[in-house]
């Protein structure tokens, strides 16, 4: 227990020592003395549990670029140590003695600061240009131009060693209109006995206002292969291709800043067109002999060297009796001997409306000639139009549209709003389902089926009574017929053969009619035969009935007395019973 009491404070002390050693921020720089052409590598190393980026101090005299981070974990004597390094490239803007202040980082709620570093930035060594491996120059062809006069800015990069990753930042050229002068040009030159490769980048600048305009320095960043001045023996650690004889350095090359004194143009009595350089104006007409209503094209070309972007369309004066329509404009531009050269072509369709001799007056161009140092005026040619009368009324065609379809305009929606409220008082009386009680709808809906069922039942009842009557007629047919046999007997007793035959015939027909639910007396002998056949009566019985009816007919119409004439009443009951058995 006492031994444990001694060990614990030692362990705690070790732990505290470990923590105090682990957390911290260290700033290091690769060199404390450099030139304006050099870049410096600032490394901030954070040791401890934090991986957050430290806060850099203000560095107004440097351009700061982050170059990423790297982390490292070390285990020494069983103790782990981790650190994160943040790298920054510092590019000095000017020479002098500078202090890189303390960077700041927060680790485990504790703020840590790095130690400030003092560095000295000096101007590049005053080495003659021909002795340098690479250098840059910038120049303008005219340091005192007029407002709007073209100035050629040239950036030149001289080098006699290998370079890589070149990056050029040209100045912004505030106060100028800039025109590109094409691709960069590369050529070789001998300077001070040394052969250099030169790359030219050119811009055409047009100052926009009088006064002093500064052109800041152009900056070129490049990795330059520097050869060691002193040769030394190759040792076994040099690589096979001898990289030990030189090394790559990132250099920042700057041109000198320039100052331009821009002059105002001399005062002129003419209205200035803003054109500066050497210009010309020419005009052509496609035809000068034409009829009224016909068209001719006037073409005006303004060409020259200078600020051709300032060329504007000349104003054609109003010509009485002539309609003028503007046509398309075209432009051409090129670089010739570092001067911007070009032309603009303007066209008009000229249509005389009446016959006669018409004049298209000359057009005027004012510009400032730099070489002469004065304002100049140039004119185009004037033209005379000989207009003969037209056979048709061309004037009308000029004022009417050729294409009626294209003359129509699509309807443009000028505003959107809602339709107004409904104000008619009768909208309150509009019929709606909820205005009527539900019972009324049910009454309307269910009354028709009730009515139908009433009709249906009545119809059924009527059909039923009719069937009953038919059934009774059929069942009582035999009885009724047998009852009438007495009438036949009576006629026989009275020896009235015709009457007995007529009654017997009617009796049989009535009987068959009752059975078939037909009017019996209307049946002929043939009808009776067909009817019985339909009822599946044996052929023999049908024959018997047919023979009986023929006998009756014979007795009735012939009036002859035979042996059979007095037996009709006796045959009848038997015949009816036979039929009754089959129907």
């Amino acid at each position, binding site marked *: 227990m006492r031994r444990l009491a001694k060990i614990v404070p030692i362990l705690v002390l070790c732990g505290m020592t470990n923590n105090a050693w682990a957390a911290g921020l260290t700033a290091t720089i690769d060199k404390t003395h450099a030139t304006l052409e050099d870049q410096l590598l600032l490394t901030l190393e954070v040791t401890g549990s934090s991986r957050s980026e430290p806060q850099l101090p203000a560095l107004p005299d440097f351009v700061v670029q982050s170059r990423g981070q790297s982390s490292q974990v070390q285990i020494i004597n069983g103790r782990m140590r981790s650190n994160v390094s943040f790298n920054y490239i510092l590019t000095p803007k000017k020479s002098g003695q500078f202090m890189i202040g303390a960077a700041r980082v927060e680790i485990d709620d504790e703020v840590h600061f790095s130690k400030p570093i003092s560095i000295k930035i000096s101007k590049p060594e005053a080495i003659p240009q021909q002795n340098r491996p690479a250098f840059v120059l910038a120049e303008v062809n005219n340091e005192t131009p007029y407002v709007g006069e073209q100035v050629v800015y040239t950036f030149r990069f001289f080098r006699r060693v290998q370079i890589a990753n070149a990056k050029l930042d040209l100045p912004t050229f505030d106060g100028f209109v800039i025109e590109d002068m094409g691709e960069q040009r590369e050529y070789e030159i001998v300077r001070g006995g040394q052969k250099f490769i030169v790359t030219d980048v050119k811009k055409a600048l047009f100052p926009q206002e009088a006064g002093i305009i500064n052109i800041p320095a152009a900056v070129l960043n490049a990795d330059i292969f520097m050869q060691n001045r002193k040769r030394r023996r190759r040792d076994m650690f040099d690589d096979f291709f001898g990289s030990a004889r030189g090394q790559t350095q990132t250099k920042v090359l700057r041109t000198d800043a320039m100052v331009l004194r821009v002059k105002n143009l001399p005062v002129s009595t003419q209205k200035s067109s803003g054109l500066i350089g050497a210009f010309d104006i020419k005009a052509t007409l496609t035809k000068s002999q034409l009829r009224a209503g016909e068209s001719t094209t006037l073409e005006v070309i303004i060409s020259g060297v200078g600020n051709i972007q300032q060329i504007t369309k000349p104003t054609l004066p109003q010509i009485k009796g002539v309609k003028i329509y503007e046509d398309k404009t075209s432009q051409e531009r090129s670089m010739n001997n570092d001067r911007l050269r070009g032309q603009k072509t303007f066209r008009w369709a000229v249509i005389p409306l009446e016959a006669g001799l018409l004049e298209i007056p000359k057009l005027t161009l004012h510009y400032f000639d730099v070489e002469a140092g004065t304002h100049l005026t140039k004119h185009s040619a004037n033209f005379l139009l000989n207009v003969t009368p037209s056979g048709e009324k061309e004037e009308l065609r000029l004022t009417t549209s050729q294409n009626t379809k294209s003359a129509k305009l699509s309807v443009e929606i000028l505003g959107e709003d809602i*339709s107004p409220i409904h104000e008619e008082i009768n909208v309150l009386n509009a019929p709606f389902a909820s*205005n009527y009680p539900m019972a009324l709808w049910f009454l309307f*809906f269910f009354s028709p089926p009730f009515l*139908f069922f009433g009709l*249906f039942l009545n119809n059924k009842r009527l059909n039923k009574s009719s069937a009953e009557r038919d059934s009774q007629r059929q069942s009582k047919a035999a009885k009724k017929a047998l009852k009438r046999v007495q009438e036949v007997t009576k006629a026989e007793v009275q020896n009235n053969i015709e009457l007995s035959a007529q009654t017997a015939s009617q009796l049989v027909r009535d009987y068959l009619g009752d059975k078939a639910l037909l009017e019996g007396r209307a049946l002929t002998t043939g009808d009776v035969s067909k009817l019985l056949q339909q009822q599946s009566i044996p052929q023999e019985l049908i024959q018997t009935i047919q023979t009986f009816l023929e006998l009756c007919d014979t007795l009735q119409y012939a009036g002859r007395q035979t042996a059979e004439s007095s037996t009709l009443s006796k045959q009848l009951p038997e015949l009816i019973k036979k039929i009754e058995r089959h129907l």
Partner: protein
Amino acid sequence: MNRISFITAIILSLSLSTVLALASENQSARNFLEANSTFQKGNYEDALKQYAQLIEKHPGNGHLYYNQGNTYLRLGRLGAAIAAYRQGLVFLPRNQDLKANLTYARTLTKDDIKPVGAHPLVETLFFWHYFLNQHELVLALVVINMLFWLSMACRLYFRGQRMFHWLNVGTFGLILAFGASLLVHRVAPQTIALVNEPEIEVYAANRVDSVVRFKLHAGSEVAVIDENQNWLRIRLDKTQEGWLEKSKVALVHL
């Protein structure tokens, strides 16, 4: 004497009820004119109250909903305006003013949501369901029902007449179509919710502490698929669903 008194009482009560009904109609007409006048003067809040009172008396009048929708729109209450227009269309399904104002109001909404409604093909196929209001459907059903039973009766007396047979089949089909449409309106009306506030949140569950799935803005129309106390479960499209607070939307039963 008793019989004379009874008849007199009936006549008096009928006359009184007629007089009361006419007086009520006159009062409604006066209120309607007054509400319109208030609207025209630009006093939209008061006009809104007056239209609401009229709608209470005439709940099936689409013109009143139309005027109410216009008033809401003038007040900048887009959700309520669209709700009023859609409710008005239930009663006036072919009214062009209603359709035009509804279309205009929908152009003012922020959310790019397709309004709740049937596909145009479905609307064409079942045109009577979408182009007739319930009153017209009931009226048509009653007339067609009468024709059906009349044709049935004719078949009792004119047996074998094919014309009555086909009339019977045709009217029966129409009864089924119009009856089904009315049944859908009455039994299973579609409910839509219209966002009545500038912006509301739609939650994953019916609790304010649940995840906010998306937000809707004034005037957006969504289909209601379920209701749980003060919460509505809504469907944005075939996949997006969520819960929103009932108090923040206006409901319309189509």
